[in-house]
């Protein structure tokens, strides 16, 4: 029993990390820019596929991890300049319509480039093994995911709290006019935040690939997850996303172990339960 709990616990932490990395960008961009990006997880998917190509060419997972998220984030930057910028003031209807259309196009484009099939990436040899803990045999790779998430978020946290740039970002989040009045280019700060969000999602996409592979429907599946996390946590709330991702992680991690076939429905039950008691999500606020 202990071994099952430990395995479940590790899985929970792993899913928590991934869900949070994917949803963080989505909710922060909504909170800061009022921009709802239904194409957010398309970047997650693209990063996975790009990572597949990079590992096929170079044989190195680390190369993929270094290159793919950056490449995808840059692609996102181009899209932000060209398309998303115009939508910030256009209202959620237009944003949802256009980004869902974009997600559709990206999904088809992915199939065009890589075909209809699913691929897997082998984890790097160092991380490929298993280890034992309290009677459970657990993949080392999962530890890596959790560690990577902690490091990434730690770096981000340091950035936000400990640097001048981070201070600017936090200020721009709550008082954009003031920051603008002080002479800073708020647009660029927003773009930077957008990129960070995309990078996190893309990173999750690469890191997820050795675990669950890359397949054409992964943007849709991840979008559902991301929306569940964001709605349950409260649109725009990063702490909410953190906790909601945790709930989801726990429910999926332990669910998969104890109820493997029904576990698929648990995220929806979590969403339903949260919305029942907090209709706007855990930390949601009524927008003006």
């Amino acid at each position, binding site marked *: 029993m202990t071994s099952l709990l430990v395995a479940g616990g590790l899985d929970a932490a792993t899913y928590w990390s991934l869900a949070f990395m994917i949803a963080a960008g989505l909710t922060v961009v909504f909170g800061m820019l009022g921009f709802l990006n239904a194409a957010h997880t398309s970047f997650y998917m693209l990063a996975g596929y790009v990572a597949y190509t990079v590992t096929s060419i170079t044989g190195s997972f680390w190369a993929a991890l270094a290159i793919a998220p950056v490449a995808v984030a840059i692609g996102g930057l181009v899209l932000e300049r060209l398309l998303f910028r115009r939508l910030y003031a256009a209202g959620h*209807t237009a944003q*949802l319509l256009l980004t869902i259309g974009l997600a559709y196009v990206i999904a088809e484009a992915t199939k065009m480039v890589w075909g209809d099939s699913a691929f897997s990436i082998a984890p790097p040899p160092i991380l490929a093994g298993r280890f034992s803990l309290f009677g459970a045999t657990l993949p080392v790779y999962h530890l890596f995911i959790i560690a990577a998430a902690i490091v990434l978020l730690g770096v981000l946290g340091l950035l936000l709290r400990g640097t001048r740039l981070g201070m600017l970002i936090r200020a721009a989040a709550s008082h954009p006019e003031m920051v603008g009045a002080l002479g800073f280019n708020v647009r660029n700060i927003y773009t930077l935040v957008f990129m960070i969000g995309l990078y996190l999602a893309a990173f999750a996409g690469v890191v997820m690939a050795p675990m669950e592979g890359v397949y054409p429907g992964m943007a849709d599946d991840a*979008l559902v997850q991301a929306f569940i996390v964001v709605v349950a946590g409260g649109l725009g709330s990063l702490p909410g996303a953190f906790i909601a991702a945790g709930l989801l992680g726990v429910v999926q991690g332990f669910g998969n172990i104890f109820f493997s076939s029904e576990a698929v429905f648990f995220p*929806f039950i979590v969403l339903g339960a949260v*919305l029942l008691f907090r209709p706007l999500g855990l930390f949601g606020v009524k*927008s003006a």
Partner: protein
Amino acid sequence: MTMYERVLQRQILAGGHAGRQDKYGEAGATLLLLGVLAAAPLFASRATVNDLGQAVCLGLFAISFNIVFKYSGLLSFGHAAFFGFAAYAEALLLQFFGNLPIPLLVLDAAASTAILGLAVGQICVRREGAYFSMTTLAIGAGLYSIAFKWSAVTGGTDGLDGFMPDTLTILPGWQWDSPGIAQTYWLVLAILIPSALAAWALLELTPFGNAVRAVRQNEKRAKFLGYDTHHVKLANFTLAAALAGIAGALWAIDNSFVSTDSIDLTFSTTVIIIAFIGGTNWYWGPVIGAVVYIAASDWLSALTPHWQIWLGLAFILLVLFAPGGIAGLVRAGWRRANV
């Protein structure tokens, strides 16, 4: 507001009062559309009629999506749940009973999907715009998961087929042996057109429809005038779900095949694309979109297996520059011609 935002507002969300010219134009266009659809088996090839059968089912589905969008201002991202649910339900009933009167199947689809719509709507409709869309997406995905997981019953991604009997029962005692394509098509139309017209009448001619439209225009004022706006929106959503259910049932009957392709997120996105390409301002606009979609899947797919990208790109461009869709462009042309 930028020029783009003004255009978007006016074209997508303005429904309102058409001038007299507009009304005649619309009535004429509706008659033309329905007339061409009804007469199609007389002059079109069997393959085309087959395609049109699919297109009208998709068109009704897209109309039902638009009922939620145009009349309540809400973007439903999980609408395929209703279509797919009904398609599966009727397919399974036919599998189980072997043969059932078609009208009964359609009635069952409308009623049971309405109940589903009521339940889903009760959860989702309370929320504003973005929350509504995201919650409908999540619920739609949940229903997809059920269809996917319960493959013993639903056939999973392989789907269900062969459930259509060779003899169609219209009424107990009135049967059609091995109906031809034209017959089946006319049967579908005979159910589809009155259903769509009934919904139209409810929304445009009755006090209930007036309430729905008033709530969309100014929910706050409606509340303070005593309208229970939640229930008004919920009723509209339920109506839309019922219509989507009829579309799904007709699809199962016409297509003889149901799979998770009819209930997944991609399909929910497809119906949004179809509705907007056709035009959300005209009640029958989404049917145009469905015809375009089916035509594209035939002709464009000969050119490239990835014709859906072009459709998606067309959708994006339309939403950016001509949010009224094809119907909107035609209407703009008609207005200019009449000035």
